[in-house]
């Protein structure tokens, strides 16, 4: 991405591609130019646009943390033409990266609070760096409750990391699926119902949510029932996006541009623009 032309991506190499679930792969990506690589700094919640040249470009949350040894990581779910092309890339292949774009979770502001993380399906992707950042600075936060839902047990995205997460002090991981299988002994319930069942206290708490729109919508309602104020509820939004620069006018949610003003919003900022349950 030259300074001069913000539409031209950085050239990058795919270092590794790991199957996380039947339709989600973790892509580890390295920018070709060493200076660009060194300067590519980002925070949990920010996103980038990945290019599969010849197929197109699409936005993805960055799921790694800077200075992590695996480099830049993205969780890509196979859902359309660009994501299919990205999943078909092999280590050593070239792709494009533009970013980092957007705002981020103001995690410093949440220090000293109880954190409730609620993710559904691929919605766990942008929440993974949030969890890892909190674990990195574990003593700066109170209790961490993670509620992670998926369609089936094999669709839970970051399973290999669950043991690391729950090994940390004062962390609870609550899993739920829409449909179990013969091995599944856990919950079979929808995320909003699990929120209702666990009833986390709104006292000194921040709830961070990401998932399908329908899950977000009903979860917001349950959190409000529990006494969460709109400024205690934070979400990151997915939107159709082309430029990432606040110009193509596609990702408007009301007056906000998801790519520039977001993707991270408090419910206070966007409640008016979401469908009312």
């Amino acid at each position, binding site marked *: 991405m030259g300074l001069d032309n913000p539409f031209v991506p950085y050239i990058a190499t795919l270092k590794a591609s790991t199957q996380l679930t039947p339709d989600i792969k973790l892509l580890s990506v390295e920018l070709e130019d060493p200076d660009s690589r060194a300067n590519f700094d980002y925070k949990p919640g920010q996103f980038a646009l990945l290019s599969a040249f010849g197929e197109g470009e699409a936005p993805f949350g960055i799921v790694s943390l800077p200075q992590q040894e695996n480099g830049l990581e993205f969780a890509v779910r196979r859902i359309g033409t660009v994501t299919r092309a990205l999943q078909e890339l092999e280590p050593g292949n070239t792709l494009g990266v533009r970013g980092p774009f957007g705002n981020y979770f103001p995690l410093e502001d949440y220090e000293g609070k109880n954190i409730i993380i609620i993710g559904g399906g691929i919605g766990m992707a942008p929440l993974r760096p949030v969890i890892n950042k909190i674990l990195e600075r574990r003593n700066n936060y109170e209790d961490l409750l993670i509620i992670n839902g998926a369609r089936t047990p094999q669709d839970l995205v970051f399973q290999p990391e669950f043991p690391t997460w729950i090994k940390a002090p004062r962390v609870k991981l609550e899993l739920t699926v829409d449909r179990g299988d013969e091995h599944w002994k856990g919950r079979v319930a929808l995320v909003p119902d699990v929120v209702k069942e666990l009833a986390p206290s709104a006292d000194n708490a921040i709830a961070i949510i990401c998932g399908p729109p329908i899950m977000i919508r009903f979860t917001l309602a349950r959190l409000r029932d529990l006494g969460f104020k709109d400024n205690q509820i934070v979400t990151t939004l*997915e939107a159709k996006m082309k430029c990432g620069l606040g110009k193509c006018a596609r990702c408007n949610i009301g007056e906000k541009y998801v790519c520039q003003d977001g993707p991270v919003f408090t419910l206070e900022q966007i409640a008016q623009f979401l469908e009312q349950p």
Partner: protein
Amino acid sequence: MNLYASKDDLIRWLDSLLKEHIVIAPVEIQGQTMFQPISKAESCQLSAISNTVLSPKGWFLPPTETLFSVKRDDGHVELVPTQVEQDAVLFGLHPCDARGIALMDKPFLQEPSDALYRERRSRTALIGLACRQAQPECFCTSMGSAPDDSSNVDIMLTEVEDGYIVQAITDKGKTLLPKGLKEYKGKVPAPPKLQTIPTKEVVSAIKGLFNDPYWEKLADRCLHCNICAYVCPTCYCFDIRDYADKEKIERVRSWESCQSRGFSLTAGGYDPRATKGERLRQRFCHKLLYFPEEFEDVACVGCGRCVRDCPVNIDIREVINSLKQVTEAKSGS
């Protein structure tokens, strides 16, 4: 100082400009006036009273353009961005269209600025033409401009008997002035009078109407044909896609409209603006609320093209008036 150019002076001037510039001017093609690059001065058609079919925004944001091409060489990939090579003159644009360009500057020159737009803009001089007559659909004075508004051009022309008053507005304009023109000492003709609509009040009114049933009702007859966006001097939504064949891969940008079905549909199937009402609300809210909140000005110049061309008579002037009425009715009840 006001100068005077006869019609012959103007032709000679255009011919001299053509030596070192691309000149884009109104041209009559099969009865329609369009902005096009001209090769000879005589092609320029300044006498048309109504606005061109499309606004001249396409010179800066082309309907379709390649952003970069992808070169593959032995496994190595290189991206070659499109370059802007030549200076240009956009000749004979009306004040509303000049204001349209000034408004497009706001998002496109805002950092990080849009490279191709920025290059074309800095290498293009604007030579405006005052409107001596207004069309029934014109309402520029309600949108921050006027038929004789010279604030967004480098040189302003005003037609008078047998010729034109020529005023250099900017330094760039001064350098392009033809030599040997005499001073114009006559009267500058008065601009035509235009209808007024309550634009200012609406910007605040529209805020409370995001979830109002008004939008679905208004959109009921919309055919989402997108003509409003294509003819509009300030609509700038665009699409970006890759085109690939055996020989080459290009990333291409083209005009899009927020009225298109699927404009905001994500690959996962979620569409925050799935209905016509939600999309039409986006059009008017972007113009009358979001753009002014970000850049202070309403994103409409009152050129009247959407009014003229909408096949089902969705009229932004009526929308503005209705929004005012809906708000008044709400606050009254």
